[in-house]
């Protein structure tokens, strides 16, 4: 029988902050800390202010081969391990599951012998293995904006199957570079029609026009319940399901009917149920993505307690969005308070339970959904942790 899997720690570095207190304070504001991109004033971005890798990990010569997103992920992983109080005895066989994006700045270079390492997807995994002494099951998953959600799912399955007692999972990404911004700009997915940058991203609003670019990282410690209990670890939530699917349609836009995405959602709901459910929606604020996601929500969880869209508050963190939104979701669940979807003034879907105002809420169930480029869908189902005795 599959083992129960719990999350016992998180480490995150987000535009909203890197502690629960900072994130909660930021969520009290009507808007996220967006600004105009210096390199292109028509683009709204949400950066991590003052990030300094050394302050988190000390000297790190491998950093020269890591993107900013990967450096954020490295720092988040170190924070998660510290938060989880994991020692070498836990880490030696621990798994590592990363959702990462491409290095859009990697080019052949005369002045760098190993520029190849800039391009290889597992350079961060190798660095983390060295930094933290992790030597177990691992995967680096680069499935666009579904990457970190899928990484969490694979970590869950690995621990549930008994292939590891502990796994570190999540992701980090930043597209706040000339190349990254240009790529999104040319793909036509950014909100450009805005007066103030904090009003650019408007998930599920009638006047939405695209997303704003965020950056950051979130990493989690997943453990078998036995392992967590034996070492007296605090449990943040129980992971009960994970799923992924492919639209098989356009390389960029989602399948308008959302058939495969809905299948991924239902697969998680089998374990989760639909009662007392809070959905952490992908909610990018692009015209097509929200439309497809609304169709999925209507067809699967029309009676959810609440649907949140954290991209309205910290931008789109690309491959790291799922992990980042889960981090924020767990902070909100613990505090018992969820923020309104920012800029949702005229809902395009008034029948959906989109969160319009800050709400006191302690949901039993959380559904995280990520729907990326390539029709790449991933979901994760989480429950408030209860021992069997509590549940009975």
């Amino acid at each position, binding site marked *: 029988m599959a083992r129960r899997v719990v999350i016992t720690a998180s480490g995150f570095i987000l535009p909203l902050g890197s502690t629960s207190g900072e994130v909660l304070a930021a969520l009290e504001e009507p808007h996220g800390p967006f600004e105009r991109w210096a390199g292109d004033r028509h683009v709204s971005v949400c950066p991590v202010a003052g990030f300094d890798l*050394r302050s988190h990990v000390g*000297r790190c*010569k491998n*950093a*020269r081969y890591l993107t900013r997103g990967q450096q954020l992920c490295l720092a988040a992983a170190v924070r998660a391990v510290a938060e989880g109080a994991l020692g070498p005895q836990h880490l030696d066989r621990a798994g590592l599951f990363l959702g990462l994006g491409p290095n859009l700045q990697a080019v052949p270079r*005369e*002045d*760098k*012998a*190993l520029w190849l390492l800039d391009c290889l997807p597992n350079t961060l995994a190798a660095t983390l293995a060295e930094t933290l002494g992790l030597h177990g099951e691992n995967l680096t998953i680069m499935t666009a904006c579904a990457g970190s959600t899928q990484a969490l799912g694979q970590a869950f399955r690995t621990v549930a199957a008994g292939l590891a007692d502990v796994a570190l999972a999540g992701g980090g990404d930043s597209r706040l570079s000339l190349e990254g911004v240009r790529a999104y700009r040319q793909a036509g997915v950014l909100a450009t029609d805005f007066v103030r940058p904090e009003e650019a991203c408007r998930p599920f609003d009638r006047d939405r026009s695209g997303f704003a670019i965020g950056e950051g990282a979130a990493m989690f410690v997943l453990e078998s319940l036995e392992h967590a209990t034996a070492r007296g670890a605090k449990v943040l939530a129980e992971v009960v399901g994970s799923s992924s699917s492919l639209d098989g349609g356009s390389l960029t836009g989602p399948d308008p009917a959302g058939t495969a995405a809905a299948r991924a959602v239902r697969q998680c709901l089998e374990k989760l149920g639909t009662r007392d459910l809070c959905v952490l929606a992908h909610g990018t604020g692009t015209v097509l993505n929200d439309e497809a996601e609304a169709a999925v929500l209507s067809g699967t969880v029309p009676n959810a307690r609440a649907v949140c869209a954290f991209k309205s508050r910290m931008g789109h963190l690309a491959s790291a969005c799922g992990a980042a939104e889960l981090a924020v979701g767990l902070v909100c669940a613990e505090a018992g308070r969820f923020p309104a979807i920012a800029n949702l003034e005229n809902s395009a879907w008034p029948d959906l339970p989109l969160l319009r105002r800050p709400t006191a809420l302690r949901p039993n169930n959380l559904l995280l959904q990520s729907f990326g480029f390539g029709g790449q869908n991933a979901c994760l189902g989480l429950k408030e942790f209860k021992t069997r005795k509590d549940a009975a």
Partner: protein
Amino acid sequence: MSNLENITSSITGILADILDLDQAQITPETYVVRDLRAESIDLLEIGVAMQHRLDMEVDDDTLFLKNMRQVLARAAKAGKAPEEAMAAEYPHLDRARIAEILADREAGPVIKVRDLAAYAADRAGEAED
């Protein structure tokens, strides 16, 4: 600043970048491997960076004294003085430094920042000739 000082400053800058260290902590007498803990991957990068920033051809084997053991073993076999063999193989090192290296080599990798600077100064001098 003399040419050697300029070269030394460039090299400590390269080492600081590649090894993620504070440049002010690196002096000509600093051991590259023993003190700065440079690994083979770092030596590869240091060689390429010197080539690029100092605009010179760099032979890693000579720069990092990679074949020193073999050079000394061959000399011993041929009944040749180790000092002579070293001077022939590493013309950028002066006699005093060679004597120091031979006395020091049991304690670990001998290469110092000043050896990299001597190599670069030698190459620069050759280019001028």
